[in-house]
């Protein structure tokens, strides 16, 4: 039987640790992805992910269900990411590996994909990562939440605490910067 998040939350508050474990398993990957795309460092993203669930566990008795559990988690994670960026006083750093290991590529390749295609795919992924790192934090967060987590404009507005129109403006501005940077990156590789 599959429990909803809200049911698992209620059971966790009642002392069922297995239920919270289920919530962790369900949400740790999206939270890690959110953290990684926001701060751009793998290890730090893992730490943020773990800290998010630690805080959630501690604050769970106070969770009254005003928002969805996922939105609540996202808010905790985003606050932690924001703290990280401020603490580090720098923009997210993207550190793509310079050397390409052919064996790793061969392992990562899809069955129908050639090594050349895979290299191109990885190059594009790195280009996106670099371009995202150039965005201001607010724009990057809006794009990450919209593109990779499928939140509605209203959910993003509620989450980051700004008007709906501001979310749309941030998205438009962020996408425009990305368009320009990706075009530059594409021209540079030609």
């Amino acid at each position, binding site marked *: 039987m599959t429990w909803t998040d809200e049911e698992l939350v209620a059971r966790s508050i009642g002392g069922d*640790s*297995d239920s*919270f*474990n289920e919530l*962790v*398993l369900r949400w*740790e*990957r999206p939270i*890690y*992805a959110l953290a*990684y*795309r926001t701060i751009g460092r*793998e290890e730090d*993203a*893992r730490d943020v*992910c*773990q800290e998010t*669930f*630690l805080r*959630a*566990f501690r604050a769970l008795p106070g969770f009254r269900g005003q928002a969805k559990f996922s939105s609540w988690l996202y808010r905790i994670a985003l606050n932690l990411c924001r703290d990280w960026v401020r603490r580090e006083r720098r923009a997210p750093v993207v550190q793509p590996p310079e050397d390409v290991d052919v064996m790793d590529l061969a392992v990562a390749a899809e069955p129908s994909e050639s090594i050349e295609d895979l290299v191109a*795919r990885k190059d*594009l*992924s790195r*280009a*996106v*990562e670099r371009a*995202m790192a150039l965005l201001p934090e607010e724009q990057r967060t809006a*794009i990450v939440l*919209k*593109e*990779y987590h499928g939140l*509605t*404009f*209203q959910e993003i507005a509620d989450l980051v605490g700004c008007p709906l*129109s501001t979310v*749309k*403006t941030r*998205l*438009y501005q962020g*996408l*425009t910067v*990305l*368009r320009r940077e*990706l075009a530059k990156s594409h021209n540079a590789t030609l």
Partner: protein
Amino acid sequence: MTDSVCSYPGDRDEALVTYLYDDGGEPLARATFEAHLVTCVRCAEELAALRGVRTQLGRWNPPGFASVADRGSRDGARRWWREVPVWAQVAAALLFLGVSAAIANLEVRYDANGLSVRTGWMSARPGQPAAAPVPVQVAPTGTASQLIGAPWRTDLIALERQLKSEFHGAQAAAPAGAAAPHQAIDAETLRRVRVLIDESEKRQQRELALRLAEAIRDVNAQRQADLMKVDRVLGTVQNNLGIQVLKNRAQMQQMDYFIRTSQRQ
């Protein structure tokens, strides 16, 4: 007809993003923007470009992720989010060690000096001063006046004095006669140890001899088997050689016959 200057009557950027993500907005507003796209090259191009950006964004995946919940076994109930802090673990370990030290070698003695309780990791070695016992005053079950007035009190005191005098007498006599029995015991122990060592050596020698005999037997058996195999192979080779020799000889005779016949002719 299209124009390059956007004439959308409203917040064009907001409308573009709303249309791009198809998220919310009034159906009428959406239809209006859709109609605008037909005539506005700039908006149509930008919409296509932003769709391309979204496609590219879809190619960006975070590096591999090892589940934090699976760092322990999933059913093994290792709940890292409620893990005891390190300082608490250290404190618990110290407490455990303290309790262990306290109960290790616990010695409770009740003698003329009263009840003594001694604890510690190491028991006192002979010749070393033992840890000072901690006398514990046992609370009397009755009142002092009751004890003093008890009829068995005088008998008990007399018995105590008698035991003490006998004990001290035994202690005084012990040093004089203690050396001889100790020497006898040491000699007997030494003899027994030697016997045990001798027996052990003999047993080891027997074991070694047995193992050597087994090894020699195995080597001999293997040698016999190898010799037989070599002999068989040699025999086969000789047979083949003999057959070949016979064949050659027959061929030679045949050739000789042909030569002689041809010479006659």
